[in-house]
């Protein structure tokens, strides 16, 4: 048996995932059998299956794998039953890393991981001898040198970001030269943090405010006999002559509502506390090439966001944030630029007020907007129809209960709820949905209850898709999806012809 085979088998057998899977499988079988005598062959078969999967799969994959480098391309072929042939241009290889656990060391092998920007995981893992590793590394490094030499020639021309001089006859562009900007420092006070924590999630925030209002109302009502709202509701229901079954529903409903109320309230308070703890004395330093955030009470954390890592900048405004005049700043980072693949690629900071400084940093001028599209009325009409269907269904159910004498006609008011909620959501989607082109960025606004405004540089646009569902064909509308290195953005209910024209322009911009 070769050294490679030994390492593959050992790594497969002692892979932490296979151990966890086997353990979970055994536990689930034992729980399922509920202490009764478990059939031996079922248990043995299950363990055998998991182990075969853990050992056989990597071995089949490994020994069917062939790779070769030819003409600046890395070719891979693997699989016995199902064949795969992958080709990666060497210039697209993002990182090469080596691994050397105790099995590798004992057999004098090197584990090589090859990663591109295509997936969030590693594209290829190879177990090589030192000589094989050195040869492959040399070939890839040679290709990279050629690529870097070419890139350095390109960089010899002055980049657009930092113009050395203004060409004559060219209209001035309203973008501050980053090098001329002094680092700007924005500090968060305690009240800013509490406000940011409370408004970050508007549902929980509204719940907390509702509780405070409710308590105040209850204090006034407590001066009167039989005063709490709960008792009032129950008494009112009784006075309407509902059946015992309906009274039970009312009491259960109130109990569930109180439970939900308490959970949301506790969650809002705890999350605000955690936010204040984590962002204590937060300070944001904006320099031309990076944003540095220092924060934390127990541990002072310093986060550095480099401009080159950033893919897009977004401002999210929910109902509460729009009332208090703050926004949530979100910077999407290229997933492939993160050293830890499980790390979140979104940098969020609530309670942001200085939108202009971030737009300056991102070299955006809102006045640059050249052309754009808005979502059509259709999206509102569709949601109204869904709401109407819900309202009719609920109305019919309430009417049936009223006919049986278990409810009064007052309850029909409840059936308007789906219509109000769906109508409101659809209206927000219609009002917020838009996509615009500027000189350097794609400007997207979207969102239901919360509005999100995003600025994406054209070089970050990866794929453009037009989606047209069956129900959109009659209205000749479609959704536009823009996929970037960080996220995918979707603008619903655009006119089909206009969206297609916008796609043509975007493809032209990407190409030139």
């Amino acid at each position, binding site marked *: 048996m070769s050294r490679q085979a030994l390492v593959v088998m050992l790594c497969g057998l002692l892979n932490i995932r296979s151990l966890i899977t086997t353990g979970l499988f055994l536990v689930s079988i034992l729980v399922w059998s509920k202490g009764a005598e478990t059939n031996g062959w079922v248990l043995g078969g299950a363990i055998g299956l998991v182990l075969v999967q853990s050992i056989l799969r990597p071995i089949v994959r490994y020994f069917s794998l062939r790779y070769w480098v030819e003409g600046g391309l890395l070719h891979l072929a693997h699989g016995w039953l*199902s064949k795969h042939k992958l080709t990666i241009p060497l210039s697209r290889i993002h990182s090469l890393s080596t691994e050397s656990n105790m099995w590798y060391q004992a057999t004098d092998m090197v584990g090589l991981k090859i990663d591109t920007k295509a997936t969030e995981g590693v594209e290829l893992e190879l177990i090589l001898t030192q000589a094989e590793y050195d040869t492959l590394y040399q070939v890839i490094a040679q290709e990279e040198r050629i690529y870097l030499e070419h890139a350095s020639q390109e960089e010899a021309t002055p980049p657009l970001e930092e113009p050395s001089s203004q060409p004559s006859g060219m209209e001035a562009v309203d973008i501050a030269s980053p090098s001329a900007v002094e680092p700007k420092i924005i500090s968060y006070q305690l009240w800013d943090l509490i406000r940011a924590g409370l408004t970050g999630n508007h549902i929980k925030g509204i719940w907390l405010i509702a509780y405070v209002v409710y308590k105040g109302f209850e204090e006034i009502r407590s001066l009167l006999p039989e005063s709490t709202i709960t008792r009032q509701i129950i008494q009112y229901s009784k006075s309407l002559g509902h059946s015992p079954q309906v009274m039970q529903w009312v009491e259960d409903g109130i109990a569930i509502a109180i439970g939900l109320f308490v959970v949301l309230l506790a969650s809002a308070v705890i999350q605000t506390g955690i936010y204040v703890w984590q962002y204590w004395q937060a300070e944001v330093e904006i320099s031309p090439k990076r944003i540095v955030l220092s924060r934390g009470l127990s541990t002072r954390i310093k986060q550095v966001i480099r401009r080159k890592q950033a893919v897009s900048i977004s401002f999210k405004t929910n109902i509460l944030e729009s009332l208090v005049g703050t926004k949530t700043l979100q910077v999407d980072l290229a997933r492939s630029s993160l050293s830890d693949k499980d790390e979140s690629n979104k940098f969020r900071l609530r309670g942001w007020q200085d939108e202009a400084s971030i737009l300056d940093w991102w070299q955006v001028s809102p006045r640059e907007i050249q052309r754009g599209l808005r979502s059509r009325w259709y999206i509102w009409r569709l949601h109204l129809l869904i709401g109407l269907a819900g309202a009719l269904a609920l109305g019919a159910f309430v009417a049936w209960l009223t006919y049986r004498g278990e409810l009064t006609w007052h309850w029909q008011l409840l059936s308007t709820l789906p219509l109000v909620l769906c109508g409101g959501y659809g209206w927000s989607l219609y009002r917020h949905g838009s996509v615009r082109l500027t000189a350097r960025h794609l400007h997207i606004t979207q969102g239901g209850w919360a509005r999100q405004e995003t600025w994406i540089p054209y070089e970050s646009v990866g*794929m453009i*898709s037009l989606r047209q569902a*069956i129900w959109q064909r009659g209205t000749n509308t479609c959704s536009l999806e823009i996929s970037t290195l960080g996220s995918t953005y979707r603008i619903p209910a655009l006119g089909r012809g206009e969206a297609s024209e916008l796609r043509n322009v975007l493809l032209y911009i990407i190409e030139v």
Partner: protein
Amino acid sequence: MNTFSNQQIDPRSLPDAEAIEYQGVLPVYYKGLVASTLLSWGGIAIMSTIASLLLDWPWVAILISVGLCLVLAIGNFMLLGAAYRYRCYAIREHDIHIRQGIIRGVQATIPYKRIQQVSITQGLIARRLGYHNLAIWTSSTNAGEMYIKGLERTEAERIKAYILAQIRSDEQA
């Protein structure tokens, strides 16, 4: 020194992606679709039978679940033909277009500049029926790979070689 130029572009004068002539996939791919759908519904039927036996479902529940599965399966098979006809692709100078999906149809456009890697895959059904699938991997996080399924081997190899050549020429430009 090059003369600076910044002419206005009329969007109507740009190549229109709507005017593309799409190319369909191999007819044998339809058989592959039918086979994979049969396998999927067969798997669901087997799992449901085992679950109903183990959990001792009442016969009414079994009848309802079987009826529901049958309706969904028939609907699925009825849509297969349309899904096959709708699935197509087009290669242009600077990008590749893929059209697929019936319920939520999508027309995806991938500029060659954004392609990271290309692979040709052939699963068990595809091997039996003799067609190949071409997977194109972009740098977009959520989009992942886009597939052109149901190609002849030579056609898949030709498209792959063309995409790789475009990537190389773009790097050298």
